[in-house]
């Protein structure tokens, strides 16, 4: 790896990158120093199996912290450009690590499976994950993964884009706050399980809950918070210049053309649904559904404290909606979608000429040609046919799709009401239950269409291009 741009225009390592990473490692080192002291104060010991001696747990954290310090100083002091290609801590381009990661993320099927199974795993193993040591190790692993990945040129191109920095921050914040939620919810679940129903509810939020004066208790923390945010914005503004590209030109379409990052979940939906659904109907349903939450959640308990078991259904639904279908989709749209909206690995070069075979089919074709071709003919019409014949032929052609959608939205809710959601129906009443199931079915419509696309190459269930009506 040479830094000279005439030899390698895409250097994996530059002195500036090493400097930046060095500071990142030193910050991580300082964080772990604090953690080591914390562990040391707890004064717990572990037996080392082979050596048969007992060591304080802090020993291992101290060793790790020291290693981080050495690594950090190594980065900041490795400034000689002649030696930069001999820097040891770098991801091997195209090596097994990069290949494995890219293989998993650069495929919508595995990507979605990982995000959904990750959400389920977090819910399932929540008691294990909320241990502070586990949380701390996960945080360290995330930072180390990011730091190592930053030694890759293509990774830096996309993650280091000024407008994408907030998404990285969002990931850490969502991860951290989700951990904090489960930390409190698991403890409250445990307390509520042991509760005999006497006195005030024994949640964390009721411990030492005296009334305090807003001045100074709240006013001062608000002031400190305002100062901290102002400082953060100023430092962020100094370190990172706001992006400004070439002057606008309606003749030069960039490839890929992306919406602002917070809408990339919706843009990703365009892969599976037409604009009238992905861009208009789905956003309306999302916002309407959010507004409807207080009116369809009939569960009156769990107000004002973090809890999981008392509200398991609503929490799971919200987590799947927010993390799997919103945040993970934004990450996919921002970091993995490249030219021609093809999907690229995080270490992969954005090749404009990458080709992906697309032979999408319609449900009507599957039905009339593939599955039941020997019984029916594909309904068709000529341009000179009268309007009535055209419309009836179109409707006949799309009958299978209309049947599927009809069953999904009309027949499924009553079926759910008498089977697995029977208690919900009894407690919610007719109207509330219908609104609730419709919203739930709309939410499930995106992953279901994804599965249909991956399994059958299905593009549309109903395909009426004559009237821009495709589902």
């Amino acid at each position: 790896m040479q830094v000279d741009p005439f030899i390698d225009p895409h250097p994996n390592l530059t002195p500036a990158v090493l400097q930046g990473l060095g500071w990142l490692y030193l910050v991580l080192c300082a964080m772990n120093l604090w953690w080591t002291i914390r562990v040391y104060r707890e004064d717990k010991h572990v037996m080392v199996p082979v050596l048969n001696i007992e060591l304080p747990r802090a020993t291992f954290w101290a060793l790790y912290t020291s290693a981080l310090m050495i690594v950090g100083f190594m980065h900041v002091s490795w400034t000689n450009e002649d030696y930069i290609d001999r820097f040891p801590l770098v991801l091997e381009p195209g090596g097994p690590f990069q290949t494995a990661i890219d293989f998993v993320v650069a495929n919508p099927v595995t990507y979605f499976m990982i995000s959904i199974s990750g959400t389920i795993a977090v819910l399932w193993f929540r008691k294990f994950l909320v241990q502070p040591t586990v949380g701390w190790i996960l945080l360290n692993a995330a930072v180390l993964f990011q730091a190592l990945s930053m030694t890759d040129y293509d990774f830096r191109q996309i993650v280091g884009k000024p407008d994408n920095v907030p998404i990285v921050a969002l990931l850490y914040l969502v991860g951290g706050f989700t951990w904090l939620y489960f930390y409190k919810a698991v403890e409250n679940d445990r307390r509520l399980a042991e509760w005999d129903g006497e006195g005030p509810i024994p949640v964390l939020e009721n411990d030492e809950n005296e009334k305090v004066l807003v001045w100074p208790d709240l006013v001062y923390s608000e002031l400190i918070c305002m100062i901290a945010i102002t400082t953060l914005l100023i430092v962020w503004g100094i370190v990172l210049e706001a992006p400004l590209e070439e002057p606008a030109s309606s003749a030069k379409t960039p490839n890929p053309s992306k919406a602002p990052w917070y809408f990339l979940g919706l843009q990703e939906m365009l892969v599976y649904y037409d604009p009238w659904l992905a861009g208009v109907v789905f956003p309306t349903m999302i916002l309407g559904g959010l507004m409807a939450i207080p009116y369809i959640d009939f569960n009156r308990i769990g107000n004002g404290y973090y809890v999981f078991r008392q509200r398991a259904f609503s929490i799971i639904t919200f987590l799947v909606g927010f993390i799997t279908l919103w945040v993970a989709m934004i990450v996919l749209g921002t970091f993995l979608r490249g030219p021609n909206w093809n999907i690229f690995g995080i270490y992969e070069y954005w090749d404009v000429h990458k080709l992906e075979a697309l032979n999408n089919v319609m449900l009507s074709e599957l039905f009339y040609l593939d599955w039941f071709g020997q019984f029916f003919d594909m309904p068709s019409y000529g341009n000179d046919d009268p309007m009535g014949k055209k419309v009836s032929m179109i409707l006949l052609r799309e009958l299978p799709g209309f049947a599927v959608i009809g069953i999904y939205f009309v027949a499924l809710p009553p079926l759910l009401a008498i089977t697995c959601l029977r208690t919900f129906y009894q407690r919610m009443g007719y109207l509330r239950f219908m609104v609730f199931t419709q919203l739930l079915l709309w939410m499930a419509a995106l992953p279901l269409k994804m599965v249909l696309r991956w399994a059958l190459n299905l593009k549309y269930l109903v395909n009426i291009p004559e009237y821009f009506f495709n589902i």
Partner: protein
Amino acid sequence: MSVGDYIRGSQIWKSIFRHPAPYDRRNRVVVMLTNFFLHLHPVSVKQQGIALSYTWCMGGITFFLFLVETITGVLLMFYYRPTLEWAYQDILALRDVTTLGIMREIHRWGAHAMVITVWLHMYRVFLTGSYKPPREFNWVVGVLLLVLTLLLSFTGYLLPWDQLAIWAITVGSNMARATPVLGHEGPGFQLLNLGGYDLITSGSDARFLLLGSRFVGEETLNRFYILHCVAIPLAAAGLIAIHFWRIRKDGGISQPL
């Protein structure tokens, strides 16, 4: 007598604050009741209700970022002209020559941060079940504020008038073209016609309403500028007032019931 005591004893100071400094319990109560800015808060709250690990402070930060955006936004308006001729040039000048051009950076990063803090605020309110009665309606107001935050960010995205701006807005607003019935490429647009003439065309559909033109052009810039600087901030300010007022009226800061 120290200078501080002299100032606090002067007629000017007393006319502004009307009571002694909040050093004792009585005056700490009085300051909350007599100060316009502080009267948004109650006099006292439950200790756990304001614990940082409970509230995450995200709603407060969002409001503070709204104020930061307003102040930096007004400063930027002094330098920015929303015309094809000047928009890009003025941003260039802000970057290269204008004193305190960093206001643009603070404005942009603050906007990104605000989108994140709004989401996290909603996340916290959901996870603590704080949307449950009696706060149902305030949750609805909150969702509307979320929409306005996204629209503020979206309309502001166009103003630098660079490649990033117009293509992001083009991609975003192309959706409106497909609005059912009201978009000229949406299902059922043929329903609105008068004697065989379509009422919904590329020059009269939902996208045209949004852009003021058939494509992202000077009319769009003007339209988004007014939405960004006047219309949406006013609507957001009104809803924020309602949101805060309802917190107090719906039983104060979220607590175990």
